[in-house]
C-alpha cells in the first residue's frame, strides 16, 4: 500500500512562506510546501534546470524577496508558486514536480509517499 506520510499541522504554515520537509544529511529538503492565499502547494526540491538540484538558499527559503515567486537560488530561476511553471531563468517553460498534499479533518498535512510503497502503513 502507498503511505500517506504526515508532515505538519496546517497551522504550522504561514501565508506567503515556504517550509521544507524530509531533510537529508546534507541539510536539504526532499520536498517543500508553499502557502499562497491560504492554499497549500507541494513541490519537489529539485530544479528542472539541473536534475535534482536543491533550490533554497537557506533551509526553508524558497521565495524571492517580494514573495511572489518560488526561486531556485542556483541561478535565480523564478516559478509560479501555484503551477510550478518557470517564468524566468535557465529552465524557462519547464515546471517543478508536484507533490500531492492531503489535509485531514484534524488539520494534519500529509503527502502520498510513493517511496513507502509496500511498506507497513
Amino acid at each position, binding site marked *: 500500500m502507498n503511505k500517506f506520510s504526515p508532515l505538519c499541522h496546517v497551522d504550522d504554515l504561514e501565508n506567503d512562506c515556504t517550509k521544507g520537509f524530509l531533510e537529508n*544529511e*546534507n*541539510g*536539504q529538503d526532499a520536498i517543500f510546501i508553499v502557502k499562497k492565499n491560504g492554499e497549500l502547494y507541494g513541490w519537489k526540491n529539485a530544479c528542472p534546470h539541473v536534475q535534482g*538540484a*536543491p*533550490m*533554497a*538558499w*537557506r*533551509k*526553508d*527559503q524558497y521565495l524571492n*524577496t*517580494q514573495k511572489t515567486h518560488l*526561486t*531556485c*537560488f*542556483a*541561478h*535565480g530561476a*523564478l516559478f509560479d508558486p501555484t503551477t510550478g511553471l518557470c517564468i*524566468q*531563468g*535557465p529552465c*524557462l517553460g519547464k515546471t517543478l514536480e508536484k507533490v500531492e498534499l492531503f489535509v485531514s479533518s484534524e488539520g494534519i498535512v500529509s503527502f502520498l509517499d510513493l517511496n513507502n510503497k509496500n511498506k507497513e502503513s
Partner: protein
Amino acid sequence: MKVVGLETIIFGVDDIPSCATFLTDYGLIPVDVTDEGGRFEALDGTGVVLAKTEDPSLPASVGNGCMMRKTIMGVADQQSLDDLYAELSKDRAVETLADGSIESHDDSGFAIGFQISKKKQINLVGEISNLPGSPFQRPVNQLGVDVDAEQIRPISLSHIVYFVPDVKKAEAFYVERLGFRCTDRFEDIGPFLQPSGSLEHHTHFLIGAPPFMQGVEHFTFHFSGPTELMQNGERFIKKGYQAFWGPGRHILGSNWFWYFNSPFACHIEMDADMDLHDKNWTPRVSPMGADASQAFLMRNREKWAPGADTPHNGDYE
C-alpha cells in the same frame, strides 16, 4: 596595461539584511554595513559590496534577474589605468569616477571598473601538509586542524564566472582589449582567463549560454587550503545553507571547490589551492563532462564514528 585581478563585485539586492547575514556566515568581514548596504571583505581587502537594487549609482543589470551590477578589477599603476582609459575610449563610453577609478562595459554588457589596486599585502602561508623529510612542513607543535577555530576567513576574491551569449566575442574583449590570456578551455563551453598581472589560473571563466541566461554562474574567494575550505563548508551547511556541488577538486586549475546556492541568483563557491601559470604554459582544451570537471567529488555527511554505540549495520543503509 596590467590588470592584476578582481577586487570587488557589486550586487544590487532587495533584502540587504539576509544577504549580509549570508556573506558574514560565509566568512567575509562586514565593513561599514547598514540596512542600505555596505562592504564585506576578505583578509586582503578584496570583497563584495551590497547596495539596494534601486540605488541610482549602480550600473544597470544585464537583466534576467542578474543581481551582479559591476566588477572592479585592480591595475598595477596609474599608467595602466590611463592605458585602459585610452583603449576603451576608442569605441565605448568610459567614465572617471570621483574615487579616480574608471567605469565602462565589456562586450557582453557587464559593467566593469578599474582602480589602482587596493589589495593589501598579507603575509599568510597556505595550508601545509607534513611529510617526513620534506623541507616544507608546519612548525613543530602547530596543529593541522583546529575544531575550535573561530570564524574561518576567506583570504582573497578569486574569480567570477559569466554566462555570455557570444563567448567568442566576450573572450576577444578580455584578451585583445584588456590583455588577458586563455590558460585552459572547455570545448564548446568557453575559456578560463588570466589577467596579465596575475599568475592565477583564472580570474574569469566564460560559459556560452542562450541570451535569456546571461548573468553570473558563480563567484568565489580563496581559502587557505582544503582543510579550512571543508571545515568552513561543513559549518555553512550546519547553518542551513544549501550545497550545490562538492567538495571536490577541479582538474583545470586544480582548485578545491565547494559550491552553494546564494541569495544573489547565482552560486557562491569556496575555493583553495589554484594552479599558477605564466606565459610558458600551453593552454589545454578539454571536453566538458563529469570526468573532465573534477579529479574527485565528495559529499558532506553527518559525523559518525565506529565504536560501541555504532548500530549493528554501522552507518550504512
